[in-house]
């Protein structure tokens, strides 16, 4: 499939420019630019990443054993995902096959991360749009508004998030900058007291997660036409699956399918991911554009993340989440499973799966084991891949004989989804903005499309005084004719 139009206008110098910067409720520094002709028709729409992160340079030259801690500073939202992906890559460098205790502690940590990240995204970032409407009163369209009108939902979101953080704290050693996972294993197992504390709330988390899945379903049912069509487009997909085809967020082989559902490769060893995936660059964005080599640079873009994982796995290996997955796939003759807003439904199914997986792991006595570390023949290269909350995360390191990292390559979920997000905003621009007077509510439609992917565009910089949103409408001669501001 080739990318739709609206990526590049033929005569941009003649067009009006609208800039949405920064995107609100999106992590990091992103902006959207729209170029409009004299009739208000959208001629070009682009999602830009305006910060160059230089991840790889940050890591080069460091001793490899520092990397699992250092990479957590790349992202304040999913540090555990970077922590674990780095460890998986460096397991290969130290030649380790994990002990059962080490693998299960890491899995527990990972599912805690999935739970807390999905809870934050749905309850705090997306539910205001979904519960009140994309162009509802902006003064109400926020988490305070949700808390006022849906107090139980807001409270559950906070407590689900907190529970995931507690799972992380008990497995990683502390809430942030955890050191629990190390190349070759883990440095602590779980105590019985820690298990009991977590288990005491595990069933409540499952119940609330299940309620959240049902809530998204009701939202679809109440506004079916909007949810079916909004920012929806055909796309190829990429995700990890377990050897038996099950959803597995910690480990597996790569599966890719084209937009018609034809499997391009399955259970592919991620150790040589570069034989399957290449990265393109475009002059207007710092973020690369990965593509599936089997389809080529123009047609090979794809989508990762919850919607891909839930629809492209063969089954979910926990019963409640599997039942919800089947309902999701069957709903509206399968249309929800290909809709961009289906991300939210799939995300809540994964949150339910994470809650169930945590409960199951807490009943596994391997968590209390003392055999924590493994080793083997030292290697110069390691690749670690897992399914982070936002999608497939790749860490790739080369380590020299002095134990220093000499090369690093990271492909994060938001990079995988770069082109898909661009296509989403073009669909929205074409459907909702063409020829209309721009309002904050209409422009929020663009943000709703981006937020469905839950992008993490930049990482872990936060300072007081940095969150305004301004939209400037600029004539071709640079004259600002209209300004819309939040904040």
């Amino acid at each position: 499939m080739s990318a739709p139009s609206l990526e590049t206008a033929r005569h941009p110098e003649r067009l009006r420019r609208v800039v949405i910067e920064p995107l609100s409720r999106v992590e990091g520094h992103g902006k959207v630019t729209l170029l409009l002709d004299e009739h208000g028709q959208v001629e070009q729409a682009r999602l830009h990443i305006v910060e160059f992160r230089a991840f790889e340079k940050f890591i080069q030259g460091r001793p490899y054993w520092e990397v699992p801690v250092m990479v957590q500073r790349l992202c304040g939202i999913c540090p555990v995902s970077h922590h674990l992906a780095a460890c998986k890559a460096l397991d290969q460098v130290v030649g380790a096959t994990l002990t059962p205790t080490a693998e299960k502690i890491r899995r527990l940590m990972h599912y805690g991360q999935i739970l807390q990240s999905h809870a934050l995204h749905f309850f705090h970032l997306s539910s205001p749009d979904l519960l009140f409407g994309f162009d509802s009163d902006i003064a109400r369209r926020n988490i305070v508004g949700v808390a006022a009108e849906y107090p139980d939902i807001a409270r559950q979101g906070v407590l689900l998030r907190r529970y995931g953080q507690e799972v992380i704290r008990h497995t990683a050693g502390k809430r942030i900058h955890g050191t629990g996972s190390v190349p070759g294993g883990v440095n602590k197992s779980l105590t019985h007291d820690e298990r009991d504390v977590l288990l005491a709330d595990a069933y409540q988390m499952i119940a609330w997660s299940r309620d959240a899945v049902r809530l998204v379903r009701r939202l679809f049912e109440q506004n079916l036409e909007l949810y079916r069509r909004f920012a929806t487009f055909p796309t190829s997909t990429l995700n990890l699956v377990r050897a038996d085809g099950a959803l597995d967020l910690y480990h597996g082989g790569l599966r890719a399918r084209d937009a018609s559902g034809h499997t391009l490769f399955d259970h592919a060893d991620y150790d040589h991911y570069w034989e399957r995936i290449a990265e393109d660059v475009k002059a207007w964005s710092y973020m690369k554009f990965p593509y599936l080599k089997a389809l080529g640079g123009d047609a090979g873009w794809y989508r990762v993340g919850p919607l891909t994982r839930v629809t492209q796995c063969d089954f979910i290996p926990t019963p409640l989440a599997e039942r919800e997955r089947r309902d999701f796939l069957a709903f509206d003759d399968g249309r929800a499973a290909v809709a961009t807003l289906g991300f939210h439904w799939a995300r809540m199914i994964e949150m339910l799966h994470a809650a169930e997986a945590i409960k199951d792991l807490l009943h596994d006595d391997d968590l209390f084991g003392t055999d924590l570390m493994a080793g083997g023949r030292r290697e110069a290269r390691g690749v670690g891949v897992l399914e982070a909350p936002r999608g497939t995360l790749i860490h790739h390191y080369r380590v020299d004989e002095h134990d220093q990292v000499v090369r690093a390559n990271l492909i994060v979920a938001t990079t995988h989804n770069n082109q898909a997000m661009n296509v989403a905003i073009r669909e929205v621009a074409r459907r909702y903005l063409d020829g209309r007077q721009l309002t904050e509510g209409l422009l929020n439609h663009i943000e709703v499309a981006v937020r469905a992917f839950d992008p993490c565009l930049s990482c872990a910089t936060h300072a007081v005084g940095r969150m305004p949103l301004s939209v400037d409408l600029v004539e071709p001669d640079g004259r600002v004719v209209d300004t819309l501001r939040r904040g």
Partner: protein
Amino acid sequence: MPSRPGSVLVLAVGNPSRGDDAVGPLLAERLVAAGLPGVEVLIDFQLQVEHALDLEHRERVVFVDACVDADAPVVVRRVFAGGHFAHTSHALAPAQVLDTYRRVTGREPPPAWLLGVRAERFALGDGLSPAATHGCDAAWPRLVELCTR
């Protein structure tokens, strides 16, 4: 919940690897080393909704953060529940954490202050700017005062 929370909570925010964003964690580490009685210190990259639950049973809360709109090297502001939630990204402002506490618990949050250190650069791998280094030194006695008043 912590089993024995201090009566004063210091919530320091920032990423130690991003230039002046490190001022919160640096001041927090100094505070931990000082070992002031009745003071608990939490460090995180960003403020999030669950931090509202850390406010339980506190007499006072002090947020410590880098500040890009400060009109002095160090600013101390009283913080009240509220804030412009519509502009949030994945991170909350201190006022929003207080408001989340009020919404979740149904009670008024403890009195809170923001100690801000003027900051200017945030690139990954950067060290502290001279201005932020100076600001940290100037902020230290203010932080101790806020914790012990």
